[in-house]
């Protein structure tokens, strides 16, 4: 069922997810305007990854409703998948394949054929700055190169909305900035809506037009970074905002699986 509001890219209403007795996401209601870079912040276990998995159709919500690109994620998952790109927190590029092969696989699974496929793969390699290593195995790449490749892979089919789950985790500052530049480029050149989860305050500050802070599965606050900082105090930064609204500090809490996953990603990125 298509939504009627064309200015809204993502909307959730009372979205909840329970795993047995644990409530990972508790009645989340928010909306993301088209063309925005929207940040979901929170410590490990806050519900960021659960939210992104529901919005990308990887996980079914226990209750509530979510629409992405005008389609209900539960009722029209295929239509949602056609219109989104996703970069998981885990390293999703296949190290046993070359950059071109990784891109070609994604292009084929998004239904690209023939000359269009060849053109889009070439453009994606240029976008990621990987033309000279196009035929090298991804396992020989640096962490930053892999992340750029993954962003290129997720945007081959020019999606309306791009989801990134902690895309710069484990990257050095230079590689991190390169990834940020690519994301800003996508927003400006294609008007792409980008939803990014992070617990990196600097990343949220540099990239996001608007952000929501999750804490223990609940929405603690939502607003533009500057407005949120102003609410807390004249000298406040986003870390202060987080502490003020959630009563916690970044890196606190989290679940074993999430932490193991983050550390695994960091380890593989070297």
């Amino acid at each position: 069922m298509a939504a009627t509001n064309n200015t809204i890219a993502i909307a959730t209403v009372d979205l909840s997810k329970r795993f047995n007795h644990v409530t990972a996401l508790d009645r989340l209601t928010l909306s993301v305007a088209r063309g925005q870079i929207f940040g979901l912040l929170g410590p490990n276990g806050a519900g960021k990854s659960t939210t992104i998995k529901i919005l990308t159709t990887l996980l079914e919500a226990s209750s509530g409703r979510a629409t992405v690109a005008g389609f209900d994620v539960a009722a029209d998952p295929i239509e949602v998948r056609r219109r989104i790109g996703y970069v998981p927190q885990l390293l999703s590029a296949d190290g046993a394949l070359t950059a071109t092969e990784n891109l070609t696989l994604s292009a084929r699974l998004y239904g690209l054929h023939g000359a269009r496929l060849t053109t889009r793969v070439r453009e994606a390699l240029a976008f990621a700055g990987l033309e000279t290593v196009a035929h090298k195995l991804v396992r020989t790449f640096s962490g930053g190169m892999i992340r750029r490749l993954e962003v290129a892979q997720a945007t081959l089919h020019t999606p309306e909305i791009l989801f990134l789950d902690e895309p710069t985790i484990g990257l050095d500052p230079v590689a991190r900035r390169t990834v940020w530049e690519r994301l800003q480029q996508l927003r400006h050149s294609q008007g792409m809506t980008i939803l990014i989860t992070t617990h990196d305050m600097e990343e949220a500050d540099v990239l996001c037009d608007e952000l929501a802070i999750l804490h223990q599965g609940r929405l603690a606050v939502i607003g533009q970074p500057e407005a949120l900082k102003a609410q807390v105090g004249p000298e406040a930064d986003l870390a202060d905002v987080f502490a003020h609204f959630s009563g916690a500090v970044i890196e606190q809490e989290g679940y074993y699986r999430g932490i193991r996953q983050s550390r695994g990603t960091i380890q593989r990125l070297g």
Partner: protein
Amino acid sequence: MLDWLYESAAVTDTEVRKLARDPTELLSRAVQPVLWLAVFGQVFSHVRGIPTGSLRYLDYMAPGILAQSILFSAIFYGIAIIWERDLGIVHKLLVTPARRSALVFGKAVAAGLRGLVQAAVVYLVAIALHVAIRWEPLPMITVAAGVFVGSCIFSTFSLVIACIVKTRERFMGIGQLLTMPLFFASNAIYPLDIMPDWLRGIAAFNPLTYLVDALRGAMIVGGHSVYGDATSFGIMLLVFLLLLALAARLYPGLAR
């Protein structure tokens, strides 16, 4: 349908490229059939403890060892799937609009092609041991088809297990637990006739039995199929379709 085939082919192509780059698994998997044929088969040929009619025991068991090699290799295919899950590759595949059945089928076809390469290795060993192999085109095609479908069955079965257990540690335990019972509750190294009734009953529900039966009828001179190719292939294809449907249903659970 064409889109479905296109998506499956994309997955198969990727899997085959990876296999071609790292054939070490193929080589290591070739060791076991060599041992079974060269040691077990040679010794039991002299013992003459298992009634195989006019066939030499080594000839009789060669199709069984080919089927075993397919089973043992394909049954651990799920490890690679769990590895892909841990790397996030499964998540990436599942957010594409590609049909889940196409993703699973593409992997099964890749396993089928790998099975054909393994079959070539077993043939080389069998030739070296003077197994009386049939070289006519139709029997060769029947063997290739059996190996292909058998690999598809057991790799998809393995994928189903991977989707249920989700961790490598648990998978290794289950994999070890399943392979030997599947092997011994089949006609791979002894005829169905000499099995006790309860074991013959289990063997009738074991797809490996039908794979061995089809291979035995086509691979060796003087070998014959108990069930006939139509029955064996019909049952194998049915089992594969059921497993494919189940795997397509369970596969998205890997990303949760």
